[in-house]
């Protein structure tokens, strides 16, 4: 790392790891409940577990993005972070609000609006926290000696992500109208502005790891990201099935979401090309693995599996079933979770000075978690298709169907166990790095010098 203040990223990455573990635990609670073993029902009911699982996902990924921004922005703008004490304040308030929210879910303090269960008073705290975060990032960029496309795309992604939290905070009496705007938040995040963040972080990683010229990477990546982003905004229309919106959204949503896989494919081809083009390979193989897997798995999970159930004729039946869970798991894993793991793998050696670039634990973490996630996706797909046929076509009752598809969750839990083993390996590596230290300053100069040869 170049600057002492970049170390703050470590806190956010550590929080990410902690929340990821919690998210997995709640996933298991639900998996067992689906299999018929709902022993914790009195303590943690299914919908509490479901809300916690999904909210933790959003929070750990956001925490990863914040850490990434605190690491990348000083580097790209060539200056220390605007204020480390403020960043620490932002970190602790973020963590505390998160803990209160999750604890609240268990005692019934929530709004019951899917994905945005956090109660209104906490919403304001989240908003204040994110504003503080953005002020720190923007001030760093503005007073920085340099500015780059990568840094600005990342920052704009973060700014828009904050703005898009607002539609979820408007109060409506009518539940349909409320639902309509609530959809904006998470869906325009994942199909829109988070892709800018993804583009920014991926570009940074590819520049650092492949050694290909910044101009080439920035030019190409932003075309690809731009296409993904543009197709994603209108593609969001595919979510407007049961929200009372006009029917033309079916056409617009169908067509533009059919384009999204192409844009993701572009990103995959691009990242792989850049890797092949770069002749000065960075020794950090693990970061390279995760970077390339982000590009590839996001195409499979977000692109192809998204297309698998986004067309109007299909989605009419599959909306809100386990088919959505199939797509959701691989999409989030490929596009965003792997990305956070990539930036962690890249930045941790530079923050701590311990060069864990390519070890057995790291490789096992990569392969177990990826294979496990593909297994889970398969189990969800089988369960989802059975569910759609039985419930939506044959017309069986919801709980009757839930009983019929219980065996699929055995497979899901097996795959999830493999996935968890992978994540445990990842965390073992994370712990091996220890804490960041000032002695690690200038640790990336070796490779920079290599590139200049």
């Amino acid at each position: 790392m170049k600057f002492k203040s970049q170390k703050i990223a470590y806190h956010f990455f550590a929080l990410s790891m902690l929340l990821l573990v919690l998210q997995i635990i709640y996933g298991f609670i639900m998996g067992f409940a689906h299999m018929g073993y709902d022993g914790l029902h009195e303590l943690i009911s299914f919908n509490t577990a479901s809300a916690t699982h999904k909210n933790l996902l959003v929070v750990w990924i956001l925490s990863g993005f914040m850490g990434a921004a605190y690491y990348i922005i000083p580097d790209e703008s060539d200056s220390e972070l605007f204020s480390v004490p403020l960043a620490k304040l932002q970190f602790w308030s973020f963590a505390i609000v998160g803990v209160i929210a999750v604890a609240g879910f268990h005692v019934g303090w929530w709004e019951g609006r899917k994905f945005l269960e956090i109660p209104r008073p906490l919403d304001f705290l989240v908003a204040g926290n994110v504003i503080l975060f953005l002020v720190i990032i923007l001030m760093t960029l503005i007073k920085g000696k340099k500015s780059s496309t990568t840094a600005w795309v990342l920052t704009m992604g973060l700014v828009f992500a904050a703005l898009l939290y607002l539609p979820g905070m408007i109060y409506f009496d009518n539940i349909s109208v409320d639902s309509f705007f609530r959809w904006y938040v998470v869906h325009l995040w994942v199909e829109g502005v988070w892709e800018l963040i993804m583009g920014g972080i991926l570009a940074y990683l590819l520049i650092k790891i492949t050694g290909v010229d910044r101009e080439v990477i920035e030019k190409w990546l932003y075309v690809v990201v731009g296409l993904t982003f543009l197709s994603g905004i209108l593609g969001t229309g595919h979510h407007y099935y049961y929200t009372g919106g006009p029917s033309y959204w079916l056409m617009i949503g169908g067509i533009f979401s059919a384009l999204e896989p192409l844009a993701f494919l572009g990103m995959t081809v691009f990242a792989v090309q850049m890797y092949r083009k770069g002749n000065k390979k960075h020794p950090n193989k693990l970061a390279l693995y995760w970077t390339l897997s982000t590009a590839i798995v996001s195409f499979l999970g977000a692109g192809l599996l998204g297309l698998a159930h986004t067309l109007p004729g299909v989605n009419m039946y599959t909306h809100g079933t386990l088919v959505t869970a199939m797509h959701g798991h691989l999409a989030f894993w490929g596009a965003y979770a792997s990305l956070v793991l990539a930036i962690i793998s890249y930045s941790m050696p530079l923050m701590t000075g311990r060069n864990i670039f390519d070890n057995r634990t790291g490789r096992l973490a990569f392969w177990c978690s990826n294979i496990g996630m593909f297994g889970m996706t398969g189990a969800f797909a089988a369960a989802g298709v059975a569910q759609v046929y039985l419930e939506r076509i044959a017309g069986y009752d919801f709980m009757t169907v839930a009983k019929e598809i219980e065996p699929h969750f055995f497979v899901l839990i097996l795959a999830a166990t493999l996935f968890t083993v992978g994540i445990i390996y990842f965390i073992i590596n994370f712990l091996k790095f220890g804490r960041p230290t000032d002695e690690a300053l200038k640790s990336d100069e070796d490779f920079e010098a290599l590139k200049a040869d």
Partner: protein
Amino acid sequence: MEITNNKSFYYPPGGILIWIVVFLELVTFSMALLVFMSQRQTDLQLFSESQKLLNTTLGMLNTITLLTSGLFMATGLSELKSGNQKKAVLYLWLTIGLGILFMALKAYEYYEKFQLETSVISNEFFMFYWFITGFHFLHVLVAVVLLSFMLAKTKSGSYTFENFEDVESVGIFWHMCDLIWIVVFPVIYLLH
């Protein structure tokens, strides 16, 4: 043209990026038109009755306008490549002028449709009509704005016979607008 380096040999005119845009645009509009065609089969009567309300004369005029502007665009670019900056500027002016004429005619056509009280939610035919022609209109608008920048920079001498790739890219985008219209016009206005 003499091939001076690998780049000009491998790269298509206007650079590869614009061709990716063209490809995606064509895919998008083709999908929309295919969905239109398949939906048309489900309610032929509604589609042909609604189609009768469209103004084919204006559609025809617009087709001629766009095709002519495409010719001017190509001529302008070849003048720029031959170093005739002044002529290039003139042809760019003509291209932009016809682009604006297209939009004016289209605006009048939309005004007529408003008078008939048709809108996106009138029926399925008009939903497709408004969205497909509306998206096309937006592309023409974007292209005219881009062409205006090209015009200003050609006039100021930033673009020359050695540095014309940007103009070429925008030109390709402009021809793409032609091409899409040539397909949209018969499918939506004429096909019985």
